[in-house]
């Protein structure tokens, strides 16, 4: 018996933490947080212990039956799962430690820690799941926690509205995902041994499903991923979700939950690669989202929203990687996951840094009111610089290694298929990423303070800066593990099986394409160039941009209004169109349906008062009527029977 046999405790411990925080957290040390931190520390230890065993070749997959045949609950550990488990538990631990300081003053601290514990349980359970239905259940559980935590400060109207928006937008994706599960069930339930929802993607099973259905299933799963991982066009909820506490943004809307969509595609990669056409859509959609979100990040002044757009953009990279992976097969999962994990480190770091800034500036999120914070909060400034460098893909940081490989593969994909679109998208996005990231950093930390609050800003407490230092170390150094990681996670799926499946899906796998040197260094050039451009414009506010930043500039207006997508979705579709349909249905219900019912009763009353005149009071008339009635009745029954 090793760690791996107890791996289900990775998810169970935070559940215990949730219960304890909810009911007795208030009465313990510092009014909450102790149970959440201890249980997640436990999860982290078990995860790391299990990782060591999995590196040595251990695997596990255990199920017990649930309510119907083929429907099971269980857990499985393979390289893909364990790297996610380690990342989620570790990053969650860092953020929980930080939250001890960040949420110190909050009166509902124990409730906060209860909810984040439940979230951590859900996220770890999602990764541990060995079947799609269970994954879906945890998928919704983390969605619920996201809803609750965005609206944690429920008395703020924006927070309550943002929570609802997040839930409903992802719900659109969830319905698609659910439909995908149902369609998969439809195709596999009649197989001799119905392993319906488990991740058993053997050639025989996938061959038995008609290609059109297979593609439909893959695209429906992609729909779920688009909602959860906030990809175009369902990306609209993440920026609003920034109304929640910053620790929530770091944990849920940057490092962990939003990567669940990527994890889903990676987990069901055999289905995707066996589906004709599905991966092309994945590649283009991911690439487009990467660029699209990056353009939005350029104009936002809210420090957290800039980071939110960068999250959308980076998730686009991961998705794009899985899409262009149609030319390299199983290794795509390794490449994508490496970026996912390095992103988790540097993005959690960036958010936590912005949290310190918010704390220091009485919750001001507007970059225009910052400036000159470098001298006032040096640790945070340096940590954020490291995060920004990593996000921009500055050479030798973690982000450089992980992003560089994606851009290169996209180029190889272009060579192999003639479709350079994903590559162009993500290359441009890399340039923009460097620009907006350093716009943020320069605007916040350099120059003169632009407000009273910024002048009197202060560094965060030790319990908050310590996690920053740890995460900064990972954001810098995680790249060392690159080739080891690719070997480990890239081997998650049987290469031979993926090869056969790719054949089924009509994809041609290439090996060892040569990439010209100039293409190889292009990402680095983009990163450094972008930083230089940002420095040229925003370092000490050297360039006056007010000529461009105005409502009369159509491009600025388009970006400022977020391409009008929020307007279309919320105002036009949700409120006008469906609001109108609802009013119509309500009027139909009240006037027509109920009108007919009441009309009938009125008609009967009218007939009754008409018939009242028959009541003459003469017994003979009644007797005649009775006799006639009985005769008719007898005739009727006799005739009919």
């Amino acid at each position, binding site marked *: 018996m090793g760690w791996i046999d107890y791996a289900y405790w990775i998810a169970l411990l935070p559940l215990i933490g949730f219960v304890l925080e909810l009911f007795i957290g208030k009465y313990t040390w510092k009014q909450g947080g102790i149970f959440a931190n201890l249980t997640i520390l436990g999860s982290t230890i078990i995860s790391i212990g299990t990782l060591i065993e999995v590196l040595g070749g251990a695997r596990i997959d255990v199920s*017990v*039956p*649930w*309510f*119907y*045949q*083929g429907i099971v*609950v269980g857990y499985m550990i393979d390289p893909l799962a364990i790297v996610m488990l380690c990342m989620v538990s570790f990053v969650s631990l860092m953020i929980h430690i930080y939250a001890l300081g960040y949420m110190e003053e909050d009166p509902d601290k124990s409730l906060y820690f209860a909810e984040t514990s439940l979230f951590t349980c859900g996220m770890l359970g999602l990764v541990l799941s060995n079947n799609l*239905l269970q994954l*879906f*259940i945890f*998928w*919704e*559980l983390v969605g*619920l926690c996201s*809803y609750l935590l965005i*609206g944690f400060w*429920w*008395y*703020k*109207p924006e*927070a*309550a*509205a943002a*929570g*609802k928006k997040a*839930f*409903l937008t992802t*719900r*659109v994706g969830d*319905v698609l995902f*659910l*439909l995908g*599960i*149902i*369609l998969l*069930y*439809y195709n596999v*339930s*009649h197989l001799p041994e*119905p392993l319906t929802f488990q991740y058993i993607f053997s050639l025989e099973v996938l061959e038995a499903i008609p290609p059109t259905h297979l593609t439909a299933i893959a695209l429906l799963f992609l729909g779920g991923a688009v909602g959860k991982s906030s990809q175009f066009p369902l990306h609209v909820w993440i920026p609003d979700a920034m109304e929640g506490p910053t620790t929530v943004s770091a944990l849920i809307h940057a490092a962990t939950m939003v990567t669940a969509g990527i994890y889903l595609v990676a987990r069901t990669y055999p289905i995707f690669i066996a589906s004709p056409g599905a991966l092309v859509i994945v590649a283009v959609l991911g690439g487009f989202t990467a660029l699209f979100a990056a353009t939005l990040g350029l104009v936002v002044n809210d420090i957290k929203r800039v980071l939110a757009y960068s999250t959308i953009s980076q998730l686009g990279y991961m998705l794009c990687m899985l899409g262009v992976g149609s030319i390299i097969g199983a290794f795509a999962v390794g490449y994508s996951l490496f970026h996912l994990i390095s992103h988790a480190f540097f993005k959690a770091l960036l958010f936590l840094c912005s949290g310190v800034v918010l704390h220091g500036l009485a919750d001001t999120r507007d970059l225009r009111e910052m400036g000159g914070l470098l001298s006032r909060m040096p640790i945070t400034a340096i940590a954020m610089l490291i995060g920004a460098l990593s996000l921009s893909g500055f050479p030798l940081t973690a982000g450089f290694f992980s992003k560089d490989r994606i851009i290169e593969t996209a180029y190889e994909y272009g060579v192999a298929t003639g479709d350079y679109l994903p590559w162009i998208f993500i290359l441009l996005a890399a340039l923009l990423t460097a620009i907006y990231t350093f716009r943020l950093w320069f605007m916040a930390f350099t120059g003169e303070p632009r407000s009273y609050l910024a002048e009197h800003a202060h560094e965060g407490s030790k319990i908050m800066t310590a996690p920053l230092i740890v995460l900064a170390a990972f954001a810098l150094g995680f790249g060392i593990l690159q080739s080891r990681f690719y070997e480990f996670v890239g081997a998650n799926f049987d290469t031979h099986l993926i090869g056969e499946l790719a054949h089924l899906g009509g994809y041609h796998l290439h090996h060892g394409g040569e990439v010209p040197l100039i293409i190889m260094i292009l990402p680095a050039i983009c990163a450094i160039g972008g930083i230089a451009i940002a420095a040229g414009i925003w370092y000490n506010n050297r360039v006056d941009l007010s000529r461009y930043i105005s409502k009369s500039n159509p491009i600025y207006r388009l970006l400022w209004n977020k391409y009008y997508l929020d307007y279309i979705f919320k105002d036009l579709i*949700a409120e006008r169109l*469906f*609001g109108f*349909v*609802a*009013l*119509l*249905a*309500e009027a139909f*219900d009240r006037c027509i*349906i*109920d009108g007919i*019912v009441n009309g009938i*009763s009125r008609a009967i009353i009218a007939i009754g008062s008409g018939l009242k005149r028959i009541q003459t009071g003469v017994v003979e008339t009644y007797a005649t009527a009775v006799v006639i009635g009985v005769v008719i009745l007898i005739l009727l029954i006799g005739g009919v*029977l």
Partner: protein
Amino acid sequence: MAGPITWILLVLLVGAIITFLTRTLQQARIVALISSGIALLISILMYLGYESGAGMQFRESVMWIPSLGIGYNVGVDGLGLPMVILATLISFLCVIYAWGEEHRANQFFALVLLMDMALVGVFASLDFFLFYIFWELTLIPMFFLIGVWGGPRKDYSAIKFLIYTHVASLAMLLAIFAMYYFNGKMTGTYTFDMIYLLDAYSRGMVPISPYWINLIIGGMLFGFLVKMPAVPFHTWLPDAHVEAPTVGSILLAAVLLKMGGYGLFRVIIPLMANPDASTRFVLVIAVFGVVSILFSTFVALAQKDLKKLVAYSSIGHMGYVSLGVAGAVAFGTSDIPRILANTGAMYQMFSHGIITAVLFGSVGVIQHATGTRIIEDLGGLTKHMPKLAFIMLAGFLASLGLPGMSGFVAEFSILTGSFPQLPHFVLLAMFGIVFVAAYHLWAIQRALFGPYNEYLGDIHDIAIYELIPLAILVALIIVLGTPNPVCNHLYHGVMQPTATHILSILPEGGLL
């Protein structure tokens, strides 16, 4: 020696009489608590003693009016037993919930017990005559609960409820008589025995014309669809709910509506197995189901009254039951999804019962505390009512089908199980899921979150006697929605064998 079902009925009847005769609130509620508690206890003992897959159990059969073939004939299977438990459980919790009811308390609690008895009778009767008596008996306590303890338009609503559902019951009664007479005429045995009659008709052993068998099914179906209720026969329900006292609403939505769904499984499916029955009824039921789901959802989106919103959510959830039944009887190459759909529809009946009780219970607390149910007049209630907010949020999330709660297990089963047979209907139903979430979250956001509406003044949180029953139900919702022996046993051990048995009467592969 009387069996457990008779004991339940007797305890409740005697309890109702004694409660009626009590003088004080204290006496009334204690007698009611004890008798409904004993009824619940007996039904739980029945559940524990229930043998999985062994057909009708706890049967008692006594000739009542031999000349007409009427018998006191009761028993339960995996369909009836959960419904009996639902009735006794909800009634027991209603007694606790209404602990503070002071207005004519003895009558109030007596009516709750009478209601409990009538409902148990409906779900346990195996004789059509007895079934009809209990069926109609449920109207009386509900009529008085609305008419005496109701809101401003209580008279209109009570009368509408009574007449509307009574007319529908008459259609059912005529169908029962037709079954009785035709069978008696053709085979010489005049009997109201439910099992016997349904068996005879399902095998086509009573040679009657297709016209008559379809008329019988139509009459029965009309009675059940009005009770469920299915759109467009639903307008009595929102009116009744708006005026009914909270306990009346809970009983109505949680248990009374289930009588309609129960009829679909118990009566309609066997009748549809008749070789002469029109297979179009499958589509009819499916259309009623999907229209109920979608229409009720959009109407709910436009509601301003929280209670009316919850009432429309009930219509949608019962639409899932119809959809599941249609999906179960429709033709499919594999039995596995069909049984899944049928079991899911049964599970939905139980699950919706406990979920909707939480919803109506929470709304009742809000009305009691603030004096209004208009969503726009509420706001930020969490500030003064954190416990209520917790319960209500849990109930609303369960109602919108959140996984990990009982509604998801049921609705997932229905959708997944019906999809192979009726893909287009399932797609339409799934279209509604986002909007179901929308109106639930919209109501929560406006009522519980945001800044507190100071015009409401200083309000109290939920009382302990209201909290306990609702908390028990929330716990049950979670237990029945997560993997554990209780959920597995109810689904797999109790309902599924009966669901399989019910479908086994149909021709191989189903209808259509």
